[in-house]
C-alpha cells in the first residue's frame, strides 16, 4: 500500500470533490424544478397533456445515464448543424453536457416519484377539499402536493444518492470530478486500489451527509406521524 501518492495529490481530489458537489447540486436543483411541473402534467387526465411528459420520463428512465451522456457529448457534436448553432458554446463544454444530462435524468426519475406519490393521495382528502369549496388549483397547493412531497421523501433521498453516484460518469467525458481525479492519480502512479478507495471514501462521506440531511427533514416533515409522547 502506498498512500504517499494520494497525499501528494490531495488537492487534485479536493478540486474533483468540489466539481462533483457542484454538478450534483446544480443537477438536483434544476431536476427538481423540472420534476414538479412534469409530474403535474404527467398526472393530467387528457392524453394530449400527459403524453409528452410520459414519453420523456419513459425515455430517460429507459436508457442508461452513460448512453445519455455519450449521446449529448459525442453524439450531438457529430452534426454540423449543431456545431454551427447558437447552442454550441454550451454544448462544446463537457461540463455543461454533463450537467444537462444529469439534470434531465434526475428530472425524469424525480418526476415519476412525485407523480406516484400524488396518485396515492387518499380520495377522501380530495373529496373533502372539494366539499370545502377549494378550487382544483388550491386543492393541489394545499392538499395533494404537500402530502405527496412527504410521501415522496424517502424515495427522493434514494434518487439523490443515485445521482451522486451516477455523477462519476462525468469523469468519462474529460471532466476532472472526484472519479476523474482518481483516474488521473491512478494513471500517474499506477496505484488503482489506493486511488479508487480514496474516491470511494469521499463518496461515502457525502452519502453520509445526504442520509443525515434526509433524516433531519423527515423528522420535521413527518413529526405529525410520530406517536405522542406521554
Amino acid at each position, binding site marked *: 500500500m502506498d498512500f504517499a501518492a494520494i497525499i501528494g495529490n490531495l488537492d487534485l481530489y479536493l478540486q474533483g470533490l468540489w466539481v462533483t458537489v457542484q454538478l450534483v447540486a446544480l443537477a438536483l436543483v434544476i431536476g427538481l424544478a423540472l420534476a414538479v411541473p412534469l409530474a403535474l402534467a404527467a398526472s393530467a387526465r387528457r392524453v394530449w397533456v400527459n403524453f409528452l411528459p410520459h414519453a420523456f420520463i419513459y425515455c430517460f428512465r429507459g436508457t442508461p445515464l452513460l448512453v445519455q451522456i455519450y449521446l449529448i457529448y*459525442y453524439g450531438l*457534436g*457529430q452534426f454540423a448543424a449543431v*456545431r454551427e448553432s447558437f447552442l*454550441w458554446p454550451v454544448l*462544446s*463544454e*463537457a461540463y455543461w453536457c454533463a450537467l444537462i444530462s444529469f439534470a434531465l435524468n434526475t428530472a425524469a426519475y424525480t418526476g415519476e416519484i412525485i407523480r406516484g406519490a400524488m396518485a396515492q393521495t387518499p380520495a377522501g382528502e380530495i373529496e373533502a377539499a372539494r366539499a370545502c369549496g377549494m378550487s382544483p388549483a388550491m386543492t393541489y397547493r394545499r392538499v395533494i402536493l404537500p402530502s405527496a412531497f412527504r410521501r415522496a421523501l424517502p424515495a427522493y433521498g434514494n434518487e439523490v444518492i443515485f445521482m451522486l453516484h451516477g455523477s462519476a460518469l462525468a469523469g*468519462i467525458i*474529460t471532466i*476532472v470530478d472526484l472519479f476523474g481525479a482518481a*483516474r*488521473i492519480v*491512478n*494513471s*500517474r*502512479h*499506477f496505484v*488503482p486500489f489506493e486511488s479508487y478507495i480514496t474516491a470511494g471514501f469521499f463518496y461515502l462521506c457525502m452519502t453520509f451527509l445526504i442520509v443525515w440531511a434526509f433524516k433531519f427533514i423527515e423528522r420535521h416533515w413527518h413529526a405529525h406521524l410520530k406517536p405522542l409522547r406521554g
Partner: protein
Amino acid sequence: MHKLIITAFTAVLLAGGAAQAKEWTKIRIGVEGAYPPFSSMTEDGELQGFDIDIAHALCAQINAECTLVPQDWDGIIPALLARKYDAIIASMSITEERKKKVNFTNKYYQTPARFARRKGSGIEVSAADLKGRKVGVQRATIHDGFLTEVFGDEVEVVRYGSQDEAYLDAVSGRLDLLMADSVALMDGFLNTEQGGDWEFVGPPYTDVKYFGEGAGIAVRKRDNDLREQLNAAIDAIRANGVYRQINEKYFDFDIYGN
C-alpha cells in the same frame, strides 16, 4: 512443527518460482486496440497494426503460443501486475515513473511527439499564443506528462481515455490543439478523412526526461527471463529482416530511430 510446515511451504513456493524460470511457451500479451496505426480494431473486430505485427513476429521468433488481450490504456499496467497478461506491447514509452512498477525490454521503436492544430487557426507554439488554449491529450501518456509539466500553466489540458476520443473532440471543435506521438497523429488522424483539416505545428519533441528512451515491452519485475527472451527476439527480428518488412508495411521511414 510449525517451522517444518513453513520450510516445506517455502520449498514448494521456491520450486514453483524455479519452474517459472524456464522458457516461456505460452505468452499473453496486453495490447490497446485504439491507437492507429500501431494498434487498432478492424471493422470485424480483428486487431491490426504495427504493435500487433511486432507481437506476432516476436512470438514466432520465441516459438511461443501467444494470445493478444485488448485492454484500455488506463488500466494497462495494473492489469499486467494483476496477471491478466504477461507482457504489454502497446507503444509504451520507457519512462522512470513506469520503471518503478514494471521492467522494460530494449526499445522496439522511437518517434518524436508533436502538436497539431486546425489548418488556418494560426495558433503557434509560444507561451503567449498557448495561453488558455485547450489541448487534447491521452491520459497517462508521456505526452500528458510532458504537456502538464511544460505547458500546464498556460494551456488547459483536456485528457482522454484513448487517442480516438481526442480525435473525435478535435473534429467537433472542442480542442484548439492536439499533443501526441507524431506518427500516431500523422497516420491515425492527419492522413485520414476526419483529420484532413488538421496539420502539425511546432517542433518535434524527443527530450529523454519526458519521452524516455523509446517504446519498449513491459513485463512484471519478477519475469526477467521473459524480458531477456523478448530482448533476444527483438535483436533477432531486427537482424533477419522481419522487422524491416513490418516497418515498410506501415511507414515509409525507419521507425526504429537512432
